[in-house]
């Protein structure tokens, strides 16, 4: 890829003015996505994934929001610009909960037809025909009948297929899928993810796949961005991230991936503690209160995101001597520099 990437995000931050101070929901995030590429964005709930993507799209309609940094989409600057022309037209979006994301009092066919008429200027008849095609394409059986139904008459998986049809209606170059399977049954999840990958390949579309489940990103993405408390913790090509995990947070996320051979969504090793307060974040590394590698240095200063292909923000990376030493000294002391008992991590599943 010699030409400029489709999406170039650099040092992008989003804050919200609140009574208690500025909530830094996204803090200095950078990444690029080339045409047809897939980026996975992973992090616990509340780590700023949705705000990052909605904000990039300019969908947050709040005068309390503050955006800084730069986002170039196909060469044009998006930050603090009106991005309405991109919505649905060049960038499509799918949301987490298909139960609430579809208009409950509008027939689904009409909901798909809307962007067709809006962006492609189709007539009513054309839009209906195209909707049926789209429904067939996303695997909705008896599509003509389905168009006349209301969302509550469809199953969760069917509704998410409708959402995908809506997002793809105007054939955008870029698709943002914000936890598209979180609200769905495990059995349907794989189908929807495969569908997204297939459609992406067919349309040569770039995609951001947001998930809190690191396992989903494996095999479906080209690169993965791990977020915590609004910041990038680790960013690497997908296989590299899984095989040479550097960041303790990524390691902790990996340890908590639900496996099919375990009880549904049972976590192997839950990460102790809660996501940070983004109005008054902890000093130093934001992950330090929950990190089993944490040393005195982690509280004194903040690590920056360093590296070329494989970037991470940590003083004592996993799989390095510094990391091993830090872990050993914490084990010996029985607790981390932030006073977290090491016994939390030693419990068996």
């Amino acid at each position, binding site marked *: 890829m010699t030409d400029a990437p489709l999406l170039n995000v650099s040092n992008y931050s989003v804050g919200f003015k609140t*009574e208690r101070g500025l909530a830094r929901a996204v803090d200095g995030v950078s990444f690029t996505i080339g045409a047809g590429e897939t980026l996975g964005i992973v992090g616990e*709930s*509340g780590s700023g994934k*949705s*705000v990052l993507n*909605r904000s990039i799209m300019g*969908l*947050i*309609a*709040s*005068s*309390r929001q503050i955006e800084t940094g730069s986002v170039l989409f196909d060469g044009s600057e998006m930050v603090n610009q009106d991005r309405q022309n991109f919505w649905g037209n060049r960038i499509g979006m799918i*949301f*987490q*909960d298909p*139960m*609430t994301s579809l208009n409950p009092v509008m027939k689904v066919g009409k909901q798909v037809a809307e962007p067709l008429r809006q962006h492609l200027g189709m007539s009513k008849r054309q839009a209906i025909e195209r909707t049926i095609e789209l429904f067939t394409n996303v695997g909705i059986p008896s599509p003509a009948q389905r168009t006349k139904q209301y969302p509550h008459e469809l199953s969760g998986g069917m509704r998410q297929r409708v959402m995908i049809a809506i997002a793809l209606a105007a054939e955008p170059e870029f698709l943002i899928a914000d936890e598209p399977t*979180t609200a769905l049954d495990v059995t349907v999840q794989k189908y929807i993810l495969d569908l997204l990958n297939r459609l992406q390949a067919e349309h040569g579309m770039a995609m951001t796949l947001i998930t809190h489940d690191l396992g989903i990103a494996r095999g479906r993405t080209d690169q993965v961005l791990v977020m915590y408390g609004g910041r990038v913790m680790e960013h690497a090509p997908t296989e590299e991230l899984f095989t040479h995990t550097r960041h303790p947070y990524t390691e902790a996320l990996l340890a908590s991936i639900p496996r099919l051979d375990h009880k549904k969504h049972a976590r192997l090793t839950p990460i102790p503690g809660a996501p940070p307060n983004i109005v008054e974040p902890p000093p130093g590394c934001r992950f330090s209160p929950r990190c089993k590698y944490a040393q005195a240095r982690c509280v004194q200063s903040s690590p920056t995101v360093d590296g070329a292909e494989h970037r991470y923000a940590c003083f004592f990376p996993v799989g390095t001597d510094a990391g091993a030493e830090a872990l050993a000294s914490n084990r010996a002391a029985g607790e981390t520099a932030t006073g977290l008992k090491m016994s939390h991590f030693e419990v068996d599943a």
Partner: protein
Amino acid sequence: MRSEGRTVDAPPEAPSEFVEEKTLGWGFWLAVGWIVTVVGAAALAPYLPLKDPQENFLIQGERPPYSPSLEHFFGTDQDARDMFSRTIYGARVSLVVGFSAIAFGLLVGGSLGMMAGFLKGWFDRVVSFLFLVLLSFPALVLAILITSLLSRGLQTISMTIGILSIAPVGRLARAATLVYAERDFVMAARTIGAKNTRILLRELLPNVVIPMGAIALLGVAIVIVVEGALAFLGLSVEKGSTWGKLILNGTGTRVLESAPWVAFAPICALFLTVMALNYAGDRLRDYFDVKELSL
């Protein structure tokens, strides 16, 4: 996690309304101030340095009604009577009717509703049906029906309007009781074997009284309006003047055209008072989080 996105997508500035700390606000105190002034002026009218509301202040060579002046703040009516003092005196009947009617409604409707909500069973069904029947009459039709069949004295009018407020007040009391009867403290009282009357009076009443108090203010406003409407139809108290009667007196086409103040002085007094009662009641309702309102 369904709600996590909500904060993100709030329409512009909407959140500020919701995060605002709960206070009654200065508007509330302004409204209360007005209500206190009106009630005070009405109660003390005979002792205030007011003109006699019945006296004719005829000026030689000029035909009444006279327009507002330093002598007559609100002007005079066709009979050269001072509108300012007439408006204040008019408040007396309107307010007496307003407060006594709602007191009646609270007493009867409130206790019926509370008992229905507490005892449930057939008693609840009968009372609820009774409320529904009362609500099936348009209020004003019921009011003129009763007043025309009975006398048109102060008590009858107050009681008639009081009867109208039984159903809405009663339904509210019933709903509030149903909610509180499920709460822990009532359950606890029951398990230690407290008598029904004791639970009703000691545990439930204090909790039901708060929402009812907020409703009472709105109720007084409604009653004043109903009384005014009755007066407008010529069906309010025969003796003494009320705001409704004063307004009616000023609405003949000729008076209205040449001397609008005769109608508009009592209209303003009535409007401001009703608005103040409504606003104060509304704020109280918000403040105490009273949801159901079926008035």
